């Protein structure tokens, strides 16, 4: 665990923590009714744990680690679909490294590779396209996943493939969008989150306007934040100040990277290439309307789901896992019966244990076991 004197600006960090404590005390909250703030982005979850921020803040503040890790919310059935595509002899299945270990109902992509499937880890969708150029006699399928941060990259790659008339490249599109998901969370009857730390790099693409409904309809503050500990502390303070003033607004703490209107080139590519799916399934959260995207008709030739038959079978999460409740803040990871026993980062049973951005993996790695006894 880090201490405040190791931060880049320890005096500023200490001042922010003091100010957070002062404002927190004015909100009239009790220990059994803490101020709950959901950080939506997995990168923030990782940073909060890495810097030990929870330990530095008053007990009246509680972070809830939201569904912002795309690897963690990938349903088992979609992993099974990946494996089914990857096991076809003509296919080279290209994926980001962090998707390799996500458990499917039969096996992960890593296990499929060990069993002989041609699964390649790539750094970029552009690398998958290069594989297609170099292997004209094979079918290269890129596993597109991630929120709006990654969505433009795969859209631009598909557009590049179309321009070059590459016929042996396709996208298995599992991109998800954060806005409908936040709405679905907020519409849960017992959703007790007081405010949100908004994702930094998703917002770099979409800007801040799409979050307005959170303040206008649900009266909750959201502050888009950077990834330094000071950024996170400042964002938390901005949320608390709004609460103390009885306000709910969308603010941008990360303005040095996030333009209010997002990135127009990225948004144009996303709009041209994708359309919302009527519904998409999330691991632990169930189906959420219009929360996933697929390729639009003009790009149908690049859609792996049209090119290959995929099983598309819904598979229930392991019964013992409580990922869904952890994702919505209903329980802490240590309350899950398999946490740290049959579910570990080495042998994950649940999705939240797979990626370093998953809440369970973060608790496990950084010893977030307080309250476990």
């Amino acid at each position, binding site marked *: 665990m*880090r201490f405040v004197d190791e931060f*880049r600006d320890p005096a500023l960090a200490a001042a922010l923590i003091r100010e957070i404590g002062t404002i927190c005390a004015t909100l009239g909250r009790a220990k059994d009714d803490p101020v709950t703030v959901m950080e939506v*982005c*997995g*990168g923030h979850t*990782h*940073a909060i744990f*890495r*810097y030990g921020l929870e330990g530095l803040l008053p007990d009246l503040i509680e972070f809830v680690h939201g569904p*912002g*890790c*795309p*690897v963690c919310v990938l349903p088992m059935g979609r992993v099974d679909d990946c494996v089914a595509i990857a096991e076809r002899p003509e296919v080279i299945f290209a994926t*980001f*490294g*962090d998707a390799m270990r996500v458990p499917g109902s039969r096996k992960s992509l890593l296990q499929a590779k060990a069993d002989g499937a041609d699964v*390649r*880890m*790539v*750094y*970029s*969708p*552009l*690398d*998958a396209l*290069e*594989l297609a150029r*170099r292997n004209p006699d094979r079918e290269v399928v890129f596993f597109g996943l*991630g*929120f709006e*941060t*990654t969505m*433009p*990259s795969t859209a*631009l790659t598909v557009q*590049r493939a179309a321009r070059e008339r590459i016929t042996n490249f396709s996208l298995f599109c599992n991109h998800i969008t954060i806005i409908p998901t936040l709405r679905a969370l907020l519409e849960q009857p017992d959703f007790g989150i007081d405010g949100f730390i908004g*994702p930094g*790099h*998703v917002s*770099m*693409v979409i800007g801040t306007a799409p979050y307005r409904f959170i303040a206008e309809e649900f009266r909750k503050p959201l502050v888009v934040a950077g*990834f*330094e500990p000071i950024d996170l502390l400042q964002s938390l303070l901005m949320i608390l100040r709004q609460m103390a003033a009885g306000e709910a607004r969308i603010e941008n703490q990360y303005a*040095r*990277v996030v333009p209010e209107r997002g*990135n127009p*080139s*990225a948004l144009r*590519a996303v709009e041209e290439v994708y359309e919302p799916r009527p519904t998409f399934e999330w691991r632990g959260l169930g189906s959420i309307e219009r929360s996933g995207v697929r390729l639009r008709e003009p790009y149908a030739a690049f859609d792996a789901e049209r090119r290959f038959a995929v099983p598309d079978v819904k598979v229930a999460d392991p019964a013992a896992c409580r990922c869904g409740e952890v994702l919505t803040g209903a329980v802490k990871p240590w309350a899950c019966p398999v946490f740290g026993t049959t579910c570990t980062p080495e042998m994950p049973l649940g999705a939240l244990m797979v*990626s*370093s*951005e998953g809440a369970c993996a973060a608790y496990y790695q950084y010893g977030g076991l307080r309250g476990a006894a």
Partner: protein
Amino acid sequence: MCLGIPGRIVAIADEDAMLAVVDVSGVRRTVDVVCVAQEGEPLEALIGVWVLVHVGFAMSRIDEEEAAATLKVLAEIGEMEGELDAMRTGSVAPLAPAN
């Protein structure tokens, strides 16, 4: 996956294809610069500019101070090596053009 890594654009690889070479902590690779290019401005103007690179795409222009701060955070949270490893080992495209 959702974190970007800062890099400095050091060369233009292919003006028509909107590809540039970026130096990320000593690792060089070709990236797509469509999202940081400005209409009417030659791509050469990007040389020397710091950008946030995400899975092979420059997604945002940043200043040098922000770049340094972000690199420090990535190193501290243990994401730096993983990202650079992925860039090196997961790269099918040449890391930097031959010319």
